[in-house]
Structure formats: C-alpha cells, structure tokens
C-alpha cells in the first residue's frame, strides 16, 4: 500500500508541475503586469528599468523557477482587479463552490444508485424505461439550459425560489461560510445544485445500470444463485460491490467535470464561487487570478484523482501494492 501511495503521489506531483508550467506560460502570454502597475503614462526608459528590477527580462525558465518558488510558498500573485493576493481571493470564493459541489453530489448519490440498480435488475419495468428515457433527455440538455429553465419555472413564473446569490450563510470551523446550514441558504442552493447535478446524474444512472447488468451476467452471480442466496444479498452485495469498482473510477473523473461545470452553473445563478469569479477574471484579463484559479483547480483535480485511486485500491482486493491489477 505504501509503494502504491508513493507512486500515486509522485504522479500527482508531476501533473502539478505540468499544470504550473502551463499556467505560467499563460501568464507570460497574457497581459503586461507593468501596465497594470504603473499605467500608460510612464516613459519607456523607466519601464525598461522597472522590468529589469522585477525580473521580467530574465530568461523564461528563470522566471518560471521564481514563480514556482513563490507558488510553493502560497504566493500566486496579486489580482489586478481586487488588488489582493490572488490565492486569498480564490480561497474566499472556494466555500461557495464546494457547497455547490457537495449539494450536487448529494442529489447524484441519492438518485443514481437506487435508480441505476433498479433499472439493471428490472430492465423491462415501466419505471426503468421511464428513467432511461429521462436520462437520455437529461444528457441532451446542456447544463446552462437546465439552469435557465429552472430559473424561468421556479423563480420567474412560480416565484418559489430565488434565482441568484447564496442567501444566508453560517460560519463553520471559524473560516468556512456555508449555505448548507441555513434555511435561506438551502433555498438558494436548491436550483443551482439541481442544475449542476443534472449533467452527471443521467450519466451515473446509465453507467450504474449498464455496469450492473454486465455484472449480473457473470458466472459468480450464477454461482451465487446456485448457492441459494437471497436476492437481496446477491444484488446488494455480490453484484453491487463489483459494479462499484468502475463507477468509482469514472466517478472521480466526473467530479472533475463537475468542477468545470460550476463555471456554467455559477454564471447562470450568479453564485459567488470560484467559477463565476474565474469567468469574470477572464473577461477582465485579470491574469494572476486566472493563473491562481488554474493552479487551485488543478490541485483539486489531482487530489480527488489520487483519493479516488486510493479508494479504488481499498475496495478492490485485486490491486496489490504495485498498483497493477491482477486479472482474474
């Protein structure tokens, strides 16, 4: 297990290096930090002097190395727009996004597992057919349209739920503002979380169904029937545990997709999270903030993927310490 962990962490480190390199290249390409600092009125000579002082004329790799050193110490530059450290700005927005992801994950887990499993066990049941039909409709509706539709129906027409913002929040652990613990916060997060879940939920339902149907055909399931086990045990333990393995792997990737889709959801609902901030930063060409976002999101992806790999290793007895799978 230890070797497995070290290998995974090593890979994660390499990925983070690549991300930081790409991010830095973007920073290098986009915008002139000098202009943001001193404006247009300064003479070319002074500019050149300032450039030298700031190290902007150093070779690319030297600048990258400096950037890396700063990044490791948590210094990702200062946002042009907010005039505050970029990392601080992002960490301020992080709780709102994580709230959203948690709420969406809640919907996904709540519905995908029972519906997917049922549709696999009873593929001909009317409920399964309806669920499958709805799932393909769900896949075909882009997330921002779901969001717009929900706003139109529940906020504009019916007026039941708010269409933007986070509502009341409550402080948690001294620094974590969450919408999930207040009534008003929950009312606000309802529509955004459903629209965010609407991308992944149908994919999960279909994936769980097809994986489970395949597992149900396996010899060991036939053997389980021949042993006289009860249906419930065969479905919920023998089949479901085997279904879980591929679902965990793909689920990790889907979590990454969800972070990407927060950009869309947060934009439609003006949810004050990282995604909304990122899009604004792009429109304002706030380069340090863009770069900081990329690095933070990259870190989130790498951490979730590593965690997913480790969970997979724990659930799957066939993963040994070298991380190779022994095919049965």
């Amino acid at each position, binding site marked *: 297990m230890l070797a497995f962990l070290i290998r995974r962490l090593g890979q994660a480190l390499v990925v983070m290096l690549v991300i930081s390199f790409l991010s830095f290249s973007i920073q290098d390409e986009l915008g002139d930090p000098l202009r943001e600092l001193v404006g247009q009125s300064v003479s070319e000579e002074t500019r050149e002097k300032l450039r030298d002082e700031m190290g902007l004329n150093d070779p690319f790799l030297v600048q990258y190395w400096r950037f890396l050193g700063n990044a490791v110490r948590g210094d990702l530059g200062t946002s042009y727009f907010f005039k505050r450290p970029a990392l601080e700005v992002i960490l301020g927005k992080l709780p709102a996004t994580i709230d959203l992801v948690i709420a969406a994950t809640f919907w996904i887990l709540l519905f995908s597992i029972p519906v997917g499993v049922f549709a696999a066990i009873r593929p001909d049941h009317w409920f399964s057919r309806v669920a499958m039909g709805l799932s393909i409709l769900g896949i075909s509706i882009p997330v921002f349209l779901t969001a717009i539709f929900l706003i139109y129906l529940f906020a504009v027409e019916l007026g039941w739920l708010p269409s933007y913002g986070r509502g009341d929040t409550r402080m948690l652990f001294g620094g974590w503002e969450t919408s999930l613990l207040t009534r008003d916060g929950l009312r606000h997060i309802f529509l955004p979380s459903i629209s965010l879940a609407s991308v992944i939920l149908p994919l999960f339902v279909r994936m769980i169904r097809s994986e489970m149907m395949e597992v149900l055909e396996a010899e*060991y399931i036939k053997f389980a029937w*021949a*042993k*006289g086990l009860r249906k419930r045990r065969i479905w919920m333990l023998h089949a479901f545990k*085997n279904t879980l393995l591929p679902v965990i792997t793909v689920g990790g990737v889907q979590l990454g997709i969800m972070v990407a889709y927060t950009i869309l959801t947060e934009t439609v609902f003006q949810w004050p999270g990282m995604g909304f901030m990122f899009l604004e930063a792009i429109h304002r060409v706030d380069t340090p903030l863009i770069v900081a976002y990329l690095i933070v999101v990259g870190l989130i992806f790498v951490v979730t993927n590593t965690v997913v790999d480790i969970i997979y290793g724990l659930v799957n007895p066939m993963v040994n310490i070298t991380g190779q799978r022994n095919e049965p």
Partner: protein
Amino acid sequence: MALLSVKNLGVEFELRTGTVAALRDVSFDLESGERIGIVGESGAGKSVCAFAILNLISKPGFISSGRIWFKGNDLASLDGESMRRIRGNEISMIFQDPMMTLNPVLTIGTQMVETIRTHHPVSLDDARNIAVEKLKAVRIPSPETRLEQYPHELSGGMRQRVVIAIALLSDPGIIIADEPTTALDVTIQAEILELLLTLCNDYHVGLILITHDLAVVSEVTQRILVMYAGRIIEQGTTREIIARPSHPYTEGLIGALPEKTTPGQPLNQIPGVMPSLQDIPSGCAFHNRCEFAAQRCRSDLPRPTDLESRSVACHFPIRD
C-alpha cells in the same frame, strides 16, 4: 423411489427469431449416492439440463414441460422461496471455470459463511468452523488463513477445491458438476476428479457429472446418459455403454477416444457437426451424420426403447 426423477423435461428459449427447444423429452433417474454422467458435444443441452434441475434457467429460457421430482416436490413448479432453500443446500452445483465462479471482491470466508448461514441458523463462529472443516475435506492446506484470502490469491486448482468445498457445505444429497475439470490443467484435472469421487463416496452424495469427455465420465460414474441435440439418445451403465455402445453416435464418440486409435493413424472422428438447435433435422437428429441412416431415420423420430439393461433412441441400434 429415486432421489431425483426427471420426467419428460423440456426447456425452450424465446428468441427474436422464434422459439427454440434446447431440451426435449429428457427423462432419467438418480438414486441416492449414485454417480451419473451426462455426455455430449457442446450445445447438446447438458448445461441447460443442469440449470433446469436447479430451476435456474434465465430469461429468455424457461421450462416448457415435464417434471423434476425431488423428495416429493416437483422442482419445475416449486415456488421461488422453497426452490431457493434447496439450492446450495440439498442440491449443489460446481461450475466449469473456477476463475470465474468465485466473486472477486469477497473473501473465501464470506462466500462460504454466507452459504451456510442462508440455509442454517448457526452462529458466525460455527459457520466458520464448518467452512474450515470442508476446506480440510477438499485437502486445502491451512484452511483458516484461506478464509481471509480473496479468490485471486489462489491458483485455479485451489479455487476449484474451494468451489467443491462450498458445494459440500450443507451436506447436499446431490452435486451437479458442470465440466468441473475442463478449465484446469491436465495434471490438476485428475486430482480434482479423484477428490470428487472420494468425497461423493465419503459423504454419500449423488453426483451428476456433465462433460464432453467420455474418458472423465468412465472413470467416475456408474451410469451414462448420452445427449445429442437436446435429447437423451442412450443411457445405461457406464461399463456396458463404453464396452458395447448401441447408438451409432455413442459408438462414434467412443471410437473417437484417442486410446481407441492405433498410434500413427488419424483419430476416428464422427463426420459433420451437430446441427444447431434452430434447425434440427426431421426424424432422428443424427441421421445426416449416421452411416447406418435409412429412409425411416429421416422421417420418424426414434423413441427411447429399453434394450436389455439400457435405453436407446435409435431405429437401428447396434447389436453384437
């Protein structure tokens, strides 16, 4: 009264192109402690027959006719819950490929204990003791540690022993073994067969051994049923059938055994292939491969008729 008595069993599969009969008019008895073998080419309906006895034919297949008498119940029409109590308890099954039979994500212990506890109200500790005892019976070294292991940590031969141990857990009356050695190495095949034979004797278990390999059957069983295209075409004692087959197909099978061939000569194969279940020829299904076929074989279905101590479905059985 025989322990198991199959009467005119038929199994059909509902396919998009129409209904296909996989098993027709199959009848045989199994006495308590008796070992019988079902022999035939792949696709002859052997496995279907095994699954039908446990009422485990899955959709789109179903038992279309006949009865399966076991201890006063007709398994073909028994309700689901009562059938479940028989499976793995009074009738166990051993599958072909031990690499695929055990659930890869559950320990051997879990897979054994659950089988005991689903049929008997015993404590976890007692269940583990029973499991250890049966693992010893199939001669698995250090059984206690095996309980904690996952299937992939065992070799193929070891896994098949575990599967046999699982089949023995509830001291069943009958074990159905569907090609139990086909997927194993030749050297291990003999060990497993010998083990199966010893256990059936020791525990007085009836055995239905399904195989395409006549050599295997002749070593283990007392009686043989030969299947062709979903029907039993000949049944009788192993010794008699191997020595003097009556049905031309059986004769062909025996003639094709390597030891019946003179070294240096080609194997004596039966010409042609078994028809697929969708287009079984009229009359005797074997007529287009049979060297003795006459007009009658093409038109009339031969009924199983008793011939001395055996039954054979052929218009022109081979006599000495």
